[in-house]
């Protein structure tokens, strides 16, 4: 009989503790969830404004399972369209927010959203500290890059033809990874977007 009560008691204690914990967290979540959602939205808007220079609004559209952000300036004219390109890097998944012109032939600007490449080497795609005047030079190369025929990279030489960029010395794999993921997603997204006829 004593054992029976002990069992019931321990069931009660654990269940009640779990239930109270769940209740507290759900109540607490109501304070924070809105802020978190708001923050994520504003981050997105800010990022889109960076990759679509001149845009003041960004509108999200899902086409064929891909999210496109259409940026318009204050006159209501479309500045361009942005999307997230994902691909495998050297040791992590790289996510790039790419902003392109409405015809998707030129990259306006882009921003690396997520990467966990080798610190000091692969991370140079974001921030190259050995270049004191222009640490973000790698990404800057993609600004106003004509990509009608795809992007290619050169090692150790300055680019001469349209669509060419220079890879980072000692971080060729990371540089190549960025180029490859861009090529893949630009080609497929271009098809989706232009076919949809959205402006």
């Amino acid at each position: 009989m004593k054992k029976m009560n002990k069992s019931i008691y321990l069931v009660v204690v654990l269940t009640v503790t779990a239930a109270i914990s769940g209740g507290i967290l759900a109540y607490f979540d109501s304070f924070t969830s809105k802020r978190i959602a708001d923050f994520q939205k504003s981050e997105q808007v800010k990022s889109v404004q960076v990759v679509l220079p001149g845009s003041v609004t960004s509108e999200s559209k899902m086409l064929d399972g891909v999210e496109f952000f259409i940026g318009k300036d204050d006159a209501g004219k479309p500045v361009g369209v942005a999307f997230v390109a994902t691909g495998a890097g050297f040791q992590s998944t790289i996510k790039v927010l790419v902003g392109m012109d409405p015809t998707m032939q030129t990259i306006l600007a882009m921003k690396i959203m997520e990467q966990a490449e080798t610190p000091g080497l692969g991370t140079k795609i974001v921030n190259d500290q050995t270049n004191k005047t222009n640490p973000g030079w790698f990404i800057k190369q993609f600004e106003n890059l004509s990509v009608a025929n795809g992007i290619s990279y050169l090692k150790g030489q300055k680019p001469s033809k349209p669509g060419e960029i220079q890879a980072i010395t000692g971080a060729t794999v990371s540089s190549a990874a960025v180029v490859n993921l861009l090529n893949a997603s630009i080609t497929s997204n271009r098809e989706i977007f232009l076919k949809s006829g959205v402006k």
Partner: protein
Amino acid sequence: MFTTILYAVLSMGGLGLLFSVLIALANKKLAVEEDPRITEIAELLPNANCGSCGYAGCANFAENLVGGKSQINNCSVCGNDAKETIARILGVDVQTGEHRVAVVFCQGGKSNATKKGDYRGVKTCLATTFVSGGERACNYGCIGYGDCVTACPFDAIHINDEGLATVDRKKCTGCGTCVSACPRGVIEMHPISHHVFVQCKNIDNPKVARSVCKHACIGCMICERAVQGVGFKVTNNLAKVDHVQYTKELVLPTDKCPTKAIVILGQADES
């Protein structure tokens, strides 16, 4: 918002219920039957886990007591009240014996013992026995690096300013761990009613003994003659007290011991 909270409470509570039922079932099915007397007795024991009873800790000793494999008196640390309570729980009789304490048979501290050199090795008594026996010239005395102090579970023995091990007779529980720890065998266990000791273990001839320590027993037999051989016996150049025969426990046999090797310890002991 209320529905979110309700769902959270129900889902978490449900999980808690599920797992606690599992635990309760497991608790029943996998339960180990344990005699409740074991826990009762274990709480009465000193719980110092000194091991002098010969078992692996107090809990183990309690188990064996209940199992009838051991006697209460094996625990020398236990006070008489605790022993009687344990005896009552077990339904047995117990002879409460006399409390024993450790006694260090050496007076060869820094001021008394002759130094034979500087020891620069590992500062434990045991380590010195492999090299040279430490810094003091006497081969039978306290080395002074405190292996006994480290071994004592009750903080009852310390190395004093003279570099000599000294026992706090009030704290000592008589577990005997220090006796095993001392590589020279300088420590002995004695009932607390014993007070007069020849505090030396040197068996070298008088000339050598005298040269290594100011208070060494040189085996001159002045004490033995003073008591007419009843209570003091000199063997191998060392005098020893026969506590059964020596009845004048708080009185020295004579003031004439030339090296003052005979001492009275624990005058304030109540026993």
